[in-house]
């Protein structure tokens, strides 16, 4: 059972193109004849390369979404934002403390946050961006980390922010500091490394490497599977 294709008109940077109506913005732009060099990455919603701004017919509201995931609408006006102008500040994680103070000192513009919430409205990942920034002001590093784990650094929030904060860079620092210093180091991993370095498993693996394929298959089939 196949549907016949209905067409829609979209405006790519103001130019009208007729494309099949079920396409995502990304595929529609390609259908229209554009070949992506910028503005296309994983094509699966993970990498933030295809941030796209658009308006729909008869609506003043400015919207943001990922081109690879958003289906077009008839009359859509679109433009892409393949790059956010922001130098990444250099930091040495080994010389930093996992505190909100530390993060704010690297990004003092955080203190300009007006709580206007435009960032949250722009986020294609449903992250509560303003809340995450304010959590830093509240001294709550863990909350910032928890709220922003799904951030794909698309930059939509940053380009809209009146205080000119680059949220995705702020959150990356917060998460790295948290992951490195606050999350506990797994002792069992350290112990296993010591065992491996002492050569504990060398002999057994060597035996497996030297045995016949049939023997190996037998050992493999007989191995016990850990239950759920």
């Amino acid at each position, binding site marked *: 059972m196949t549907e016949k294709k209905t067409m829609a008109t979209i405006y790519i940077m103001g130019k009208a193109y007729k494309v099949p109506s079920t396409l995502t913005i990304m595929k529609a732009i390609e259908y229209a004849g554009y070949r992506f060099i910028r503005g296309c990455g994983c094509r699966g919603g993970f990498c933030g390369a295809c941030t796209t701004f658009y308006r729909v017919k008869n609506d003043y509201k400015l919207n943001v979404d990922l081109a690879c995931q958003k289906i077009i609408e008839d009359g859509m006006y679109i433009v892409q934002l393949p790059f956010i102008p922001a130098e990444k500040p250099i930091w040495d994680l080994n010389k930093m403390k996992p*505190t*909100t*103070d530390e993060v*704010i000192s690297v990004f003092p513009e955080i*203190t*300009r*946050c*007006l*709580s*206007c*919430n435009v960032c*949250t*409205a722009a986020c294609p990942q449903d992250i509560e961006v*303003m*809340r995450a920034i*304010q959590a830093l*002001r*509240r*001294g*709550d590093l863990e909350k910032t980390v928890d709220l922003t784990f799904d951030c794909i650094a698309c930059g939509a929030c940053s380009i809209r922010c009146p*205080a000119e904060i680059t949220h995705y860079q702020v959150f990356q620092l917060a998460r790295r500091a948290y992951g490195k210093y606050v999350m506990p180091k797994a002792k069992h991993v350290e112990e296993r490394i010591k065992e491996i370095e002492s050569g504990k498993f060398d002999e057994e693996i060597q035996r497996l490497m030297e045995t016949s394929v049939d023997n190996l298959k037998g050992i493999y089939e007989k191995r016990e599977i850990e239950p759920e």
Partner: protein
Amino acid sequence: MVIMVKVLYYPGCSLKNTYPEFEKSAYEVCKKLGLELVEIPDWNCCGVVPSLAADNVMRHIGAVRSFINAQEKGREIGTNIVVTLCSMCYNVLKRVNLILKEEPDMLETVNAFIDDQPDYIPELKIVHLLNLLKEIGFEKLEEKLNNPLRGLKVAPYYGCALLRPNKPDGVPIDDPENPTILENLIKSVGAEPVDFPFKMECCGNYHVVFEPNIVEMRTKKIIGSARSEKADIIVSSCPLCTYNLERGGGTVDRSEQIPVVFFTQLLALALGAEPYLPTELNINFKRNRRRKV
């Protein structure tokens, strides 16, 4: 058995990051006095940095969002009182609340802009902890003293934000021309308030960032005045004043320095609770004198 009275509490950014001792000592004091400080969930920065420049209410969105969360929490715990510690947060929150009460157009604009939260109905009461303590009654403090700070000479530094701008039912926590609330507090813990003419003079505030010489000039005068009145310590209610006074713009001679503590730390000490004082400052009261280590 003390029945805890609940009030909403707005901490402000400085108390969570740079000066946690102000908040911690306040919790200790309030606990002793039967007050439960309920922190407003998801409060936002009051916006003091951007808001100092303009009276455009859009720059106070942070404060209003905090009011909305306070309003909701307040209904849950049965209060409309929001208490603050930081003078500057107090000043901003008080003034924003006032504007919204007096100018319905502003209120409507702000509520329309914040379209992701319920509307704010200006029924909250913003108070400073000093006012709350006065209402509870300073004599109650006297009753609970564990460690009266006899012989300690304390200079009450008000700064600006607790007293200005003047307006009926507005910012001033006491008579803006000659406030005595801190002095009364100091007396009630057994110490001796020092009257010095610079108690309400501005420390220089954010000029410390770009014009530190202004702060140096002003704090020198303030500390010099307190010193000439033989003050042992200065109490303040403002993280920024404290920062400026402690550093004196970075150039005050260390030997001329007088320790600056938050008023809640003094209270905590007197009530026998943990004052969160820095280790090098050791105020010994049994021997009625100050000993600096």
